[in-house]
């Protein structure tokens, strides 16, 4: 066990080292040869990896150091993304269950479910965020992060619905006959056979949705001009990129880490919930 963990840590460090070497090697080669394809490389377009790391210790205009500023921003985004993810997953799951039960409904509704995902999120987000801003809940509009989470859930529900439908149908025909032989009711078959059979499919969707919800939250913040999260930080640092490119790079790393964090949480949940032959995880 300890040996396996050790092996994983070593692999992780090796890959990390390899990526760092690629980064720095690329920078070194392009700078040295002054190649301009696909773009010219200098400290502005591609800062040193370690310089980005060191930048985290610099203070920002808010008075906080960059690392702390970004953690605050990441937590704000994480809150919207997590709530949106959870809401989208629940809606997506139940939509899938309903659509599988009623085939007529599925044929009628599925095209709109697909259409909902072809509308660019950039076009839809401002409408949703502004629209919800004019809604009154208990005398005041819902807080910013709630509006952003709606965008995140919009990106989350779709893969969950599609995979739930697929998964619920994946139940073994013999297992269904077995349930039939027990004179099991539809709900019992759903709960004791179809849903457990669907779980691996649903978790695949949740892994996709986990990272999508982070992206959705960031885009939602940007289109709604909400500046507390990573979306706001990206817009802000983008404006000052020429003065300090490392701030934007650091923000991007935080966004990536947040996505990875979400993914790992889903992975962990899968390990706890799904008891299958351990042939495939990740």
């Amino acid at each position, binding site marked *: 066990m300890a040996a396996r963990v050790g092996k994983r840590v070593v692999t992780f460090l090796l890959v990390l080292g390899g990526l760092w070497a690629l980064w720095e090697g690329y920078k070194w080669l392009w700078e040295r040869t002054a190649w301009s394809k696909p773009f010219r490389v200098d400290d502005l377009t591609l800062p040193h990896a370690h310089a980005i790391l060191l930048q985290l210790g610099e203070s920002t205009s808010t008075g906080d150091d960059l690392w702390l500023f970004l953690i605050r921003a990441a937590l704000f985004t994480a809150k919207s993304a997590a709530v949106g993810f959870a809401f989208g997953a629940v809606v997506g799951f139940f939509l899938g269950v309903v659509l599988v039960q009623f085939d007529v409904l599925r044929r009628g509704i599925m095209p709109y479910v697909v259409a909902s995902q072809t509308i660019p999120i950039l076009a839809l987000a401002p409408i949703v965020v502004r629209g919800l801003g004019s809604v009154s809940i208990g005398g005041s509009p819902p807080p910013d992060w709630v509006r952003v989470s709606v965008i995140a859930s919009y990106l989350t529900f779709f893969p969950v619905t599609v995979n739930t439908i697929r998964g619920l149908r994946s139940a073994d025909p*013999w297992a269904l006959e077995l349930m039939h032989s*027990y*004179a099991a009711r539809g709900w019992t078959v759903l709960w004791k056979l179809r849903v*457990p059979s669907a779980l691996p499919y649903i978790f695949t969707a949740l892994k996709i949705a986990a990272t999508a919800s982070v992206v959705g939250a960031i885009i939602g913040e940007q289109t709604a001009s909400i500046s507390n999260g990573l979306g706001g930080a990206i817009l802000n640092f983008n404006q000052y990129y020429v003065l300090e490119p490392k701030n934007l790079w650091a923000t991007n790393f935080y966004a990536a880490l947040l996505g990875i964090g979400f993914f790992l949480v889903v992975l962990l949940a899968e390990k706890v919930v799904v008891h*299958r032959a351990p042939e495939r995880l990740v």
Partner: protein
Amino acid sequence: MSVSTSVVSINGLSKVFGKGGVTALQGIDLEVERGEFVSLIGPSGCGKSTLLRIVGDIIAPTEGEVAVNGKPARKARLDRDYGIVFQAPVLYDWRTVAKNIALPLEMLGWNRAKRAARVRDMVELVELGGFEKHHPWQLSGGMQQRVSIARALSFSPALLLMDEPFGALDEMTRERLNLELLRIWAETGSTVIFVTHSISEAVFLSTRVVVMSPRPGRVASIVPVDLPQPRTAATREQPRFFELVTRVRESLHAVGADEVEETLATEDELA
């Protein structure tokens, strides 16, 4: 014919698949008495599995009637009068051995304590003590099929339907499970209908062997097996055993030898 002791009573049963399509079964009449062990044997396409499914009300007959415990098959299914074992174990991967066995008991609304007690008995019956907490994929094929049998018997159904349950297992495991099945049958006193394509398995296990002919599936002959009970590994070496095996084999050849040879020839050509 006394209706009271018949567990299964089949009258004039036919099954046609599709509109004007393949006739799988034609004019089947069969009575299975309480405590009998009846095997259905025949070449592929003789409808033996179809017949079993109709008895279990998994599919409906085109014509004729099936009564289980004196009730229509559908009523019998709704009353959970039979347990079924398929060719594959059909265990739920996400459930442990104990929880797989308890599945039908959950459907029947048994409480936790009652379920646990029955699962203990069943685990003992199929000799899987110590594996209660294992998941199916951690067991061998033979052990998985034993779990499947335990699950089918857990709610003490009057009738056990088995569709080539040992077909996917190796010969050694199969013979051992044959013995175990006979012990379980004797201990539980249940009635068994057993589909197989192994002549020796059919003769070894059964009190009667029903030989079926293919296309359309019919009952060609019924061979009563008078081998003494309880049967043991030595039973397979008795002259009477070989005589009965020969009789079943000859019945099979009489009904479908052409078909079988034709099939074999086609398979050879393909190979």
